[in-house]
């Protein structure tokens, strides 16, 4: 869907909110909430709210900095050209100022609510996304989203650190799951939007190495992700509900990735446009992209349900200690 820019419209608070990539923020909030509730300890509602808000604001601030820096390439891509900066509703300098101010406020709030470790991790996450990924990797290497994906993977660990003041095997596993999920998720989208990325000169894998290599890479990451998704069951973090979701979800993820690998998705040149719109041969990639979002929400939703609503029945009892004591 393309929204025509109305030059007479003045910026609203909503435009500034849009700078913070609310869709990305929703996933960050969800995984952070799951990380918080999965961690051992008491759940003070004020601290939960403050910590998750700080993580969401930090992610949003990083998004605003990304929009400031990437305004030139956003203007060339149909998916991003209606964003507040390229459409002219918000000045680039204001996006930069918003990003910096909200970054500082989010880290300060996290230091108050969650302590130094969580605040340091949040600051690192913002820096990694805005500087390492946006300014460093994105325009230089086809591995941009693989390495840059670390910033999107850290929120559950930040929430865990905010609650417990420490880290361990369990939060590391949650980070690893999102880290391994990101390439398959993003490359599935890139396969049917490669025309956009090529036009903007962003070296995404389908642009630099071709669609066939990307389809193979997606399958490799899916095969690594599916068993990794089950790992929290063996530390005791995930119970029966999580095990069922991770097992079935992982199986479905791999099935869809195999379909992508056997398809001709991304072979046609020049496609770009809406996120949920693709021509027939690209449908397997669209299906995997859509399912990958559901998969991650379901995994962390299962964790949240188990730990926040008392539905956690461990599958494996012994190694529970292993996951909790390393701190």
């Amino acid at each position, binding site marked *: 869907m393309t929204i025509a820019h109305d030059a007479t419209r*003045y*910026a*609203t*608070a909503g435009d*500034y909110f849009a700078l913070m990539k609310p869709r990305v923020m929703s996933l960050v909030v969800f995984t952070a909430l799951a990380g918080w509730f999965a961690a051992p300890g008491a759940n*003070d509602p*004020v*601290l939960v*709210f*403050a910590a998750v*808000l700080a993580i969401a604001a930090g992610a949003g601030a990083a998004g605003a900095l990304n929009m400031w820096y990437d305004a030139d390439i956003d203007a060339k891509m149909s998916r991003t050209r209606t964003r507040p900066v390229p459409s002219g509703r918000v000045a680039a300098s204001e996006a930069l100022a918003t990003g910096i101010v909200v970054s500082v*406020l989010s880290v300060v*709030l996290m230091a*108050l*609510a969650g302590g130094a470790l969580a605040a340091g991790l949040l600051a690192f996450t913002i820096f990694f996304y805005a500087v390492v990924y946006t300014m460093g990797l994105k325009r230089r290497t086809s591995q941009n989203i693989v390495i840059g994906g670390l910033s999107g993977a850290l929120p559950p660990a930040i929430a865990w650190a905010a609650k417990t003041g420490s880290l361990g095997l369990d939060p590391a596993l949650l980070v690893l799951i999102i880290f391994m999920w990101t390439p398959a998720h993003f490359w599935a989208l890139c396969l049917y939007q490669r025309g956009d990325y090529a036009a903007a000169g962003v070296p995404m894998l389908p642009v630099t190495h071709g669609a066939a290599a990307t389809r193979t890479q997606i399958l490799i990451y899916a095969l690594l992700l599916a068993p990794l998704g089950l790992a929290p069951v063996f530390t005791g973090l995930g119970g029966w509900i999580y095990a069922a979701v991770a097992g079935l979800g992982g199986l479905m993820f791999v099935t869809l990735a195999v379909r992508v690998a056997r398809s001709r998705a991304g072979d046609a040149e020049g496609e770009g446009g809406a996120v949920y719109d693709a021509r027939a041969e690209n449908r397997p990639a669209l299906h995997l992209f859509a399912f990958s979002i559901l998969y991650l929400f379901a995994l962390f939703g299962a964790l949240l349900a188990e730990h926040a609503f008392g539905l956690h029945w461990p599958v494996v009892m012994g190694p529970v200690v292993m996951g909790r004591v390393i701190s």
Partner: protein
Amino acid sequence: MTPEAERARNRRNLMLALAIGALVLLVFLVTIVKMKAGVMERSF
């Protein structure tokens, strides 16, 4: 500045004021929770 631009600016300022007010309230509540936890720890 046109009247419409001024109205848009006023609306943005109002939202900003509300956001700052909410942040101040949240920092106050977090401080209270942390102080309470500190007092409880000392009393044991």
